[in-house]
């Protein structure tokens, strides 16, 4: 089995770099080929990088609260760009304030994300979720 490819980055005008650097480190250690776009990444940049690298998944971080505005239309843009069914994860502090996570999750699932992660998700949890997603894909 060849290495799975991930594109990661922090969307929008968001500069929270710490989690992004640690995720890159952890994903690489865990055996994924990881393209890290860093902070302040636009939807277009994510999509271009995914096309260019033929990525299996795009993992979007948003910490600063404006993630809801920044993520709108991402799935549609992926579809248009031909990234049909690419795995889309989003995580961090993706909305403003302390909201019920069920509501938030639903909102982002409706926007087309495959999985949504609450504040403080550990790299281990992220890796497990990726592995589960990929092995489910294998099974199909």
């Amino acid at each position, binding site marked *: 089995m060849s290495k799975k490819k991930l594109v990661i980055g922090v969307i*929008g005008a968001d*500069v929270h770099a710490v989690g992004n650097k640690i995720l890159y480190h952890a994903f690489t250690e865990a055996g994924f080929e990881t393209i890290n776009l*860093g902070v302040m990444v636009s939807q277009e940049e994510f999509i271009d990088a995914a096309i260019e690298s033929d990525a299996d998944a795009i993992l979007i971080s948003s910490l*600063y*609260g*404006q993630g809801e505005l920044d993520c709108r239309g991402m799935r549609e843009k992926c579809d248009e760009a031909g990234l049909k069914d690419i795995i889309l994860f989003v995580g961090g502090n993706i909305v*403003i*304030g302390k909201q019920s996570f069920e509501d938030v999750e639903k909102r982002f699932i409706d926007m087309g994300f495959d999985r949504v992660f609450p*504040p403080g998700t550990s790299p281990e949890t992220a890796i497990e979720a990726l592995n589960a997603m990929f092995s489910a894909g294998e099974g199909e």
Partner: protein
Amino acid sequence: MDVKNKRLSDGEFEALRKEVLAQWPTGKDVDLEEAVALHKSMPDHRIFSKKLLEAKRSKSTLIQPRAGVPVIEEHIKLMQFLESEGEADLLPTTIDSYTRQNRYEEAENGVSESVRLGRAMLNGFPAVNHGVAGCRRVTESVDVPIQVRHGTPDARLLTEITLAGGFTSYEGGGVSYNLPYCKNVPLERTIIDWQYTDRLTGLYEEMGVSINREPYGPLTGTLVPPCISHAVAIIEALLAAEQGVKNITVGYGQCGNMLQDIAAIRTLQELTDEYLSKNGYNDVIVTTVLHQWMGGFPADEAKAFGVISTGSLTAALAQATKVIVKSPHEAVGIPTMEANAQGLRCTKQVINMMCDQSFNDHHLESEKNIIRRETRSIVDKCFELGDGDIALGVCRGVEAGVLDVPFAPCRFNKGLMLPCRDNEGAVRILNTGNLPFSQELKDFHAEKISERAKHEKRDASFQMVIDDVYAIGKGYLVGRPK
């Protein structure tokens, strides 16, 4: 780009000003003379510089939250609540992240979406979009001084509008609002743009209105050793003073070891005074601010109160002039006004219980000495690299990694230096990278970290750094292996 620590001439400033005020329609409402008159009509208790000076004289520590929401009416409600229920001595207006990137269209959209959905869709107050009149509604709504807090690389228009809008203090600087807040902006660019902000502040000063300026202390908030943030604070103070700023608050983000934190606040005051007067700026009033822990917080609110308290206690014992307060919601999201007020009241209680006490640790002087030597080595090296010009010097210093901020998103930051905690939790330096430290200083750090490594029976490595990044969020100061 030609960067030099030299006061902008009136001609240069005026030329720039035309451009700046044209960046967004609200710019046209700025009228400097009229704004000065407004400031002059304010009562003392609404003026930041006066309240700080009074606190410095009486050795008390003022408390200030972070807070900002997109819609004016909601923002006013928030300010009034934090004043009355939060017992805040000073208030902020935190600016949203689109405004920080000068994306005023998106900010506009964020405001209307917030109204439409009935919940905040921006993480702050888009002051440029709300314009001078909107800002004045805010600053006039409370009886304490309000400061603009943001993280904006090019903050020129924001400065014009908010100062005209009656804010009496303004955070930021060309280094501190670049390295932690940008990805692609060259340092020369932000330094030049911040000379504009400082010059505008200087103009107010010359017209009899003393606006407080606050270089942003904590940088990335994540294991930043005191010498790094001190160097930035001192350099930005020098840059501001050159443009005529006379009231400056230098800041530092709590690292968590009380001794180191108190030594840091004390040396921050002392070294800033020293460099200012050494460079001929003799009439600048310097005060200090401690930011409660700026890195990852525990999600549990009770534990968050614990973290908030340690920062409050340290601020009081260090006699910082003010402390910036976190809330029990920190790990999760922008706090409700209630949670924000809780953080403030917790802080107030601790400060009031500690403010009469004194701290006289045996090791305080030696810890201060370490910070002094480290900081001087960095600042002096920057002067040297800039051939005596600190504006040029800091650009070259950052390029060379002489000044290096951990975890910074900016690609012009070297990122070679790696911090981690020693066995007592003080932030030391695992990899000094290109910091211009003497062998003696390097040995000191190596020694301190090997003490911890031995205690933990493992080698010092990047894993230790990662463990330290998570530690406070997980309930500890030092990220020990389990």
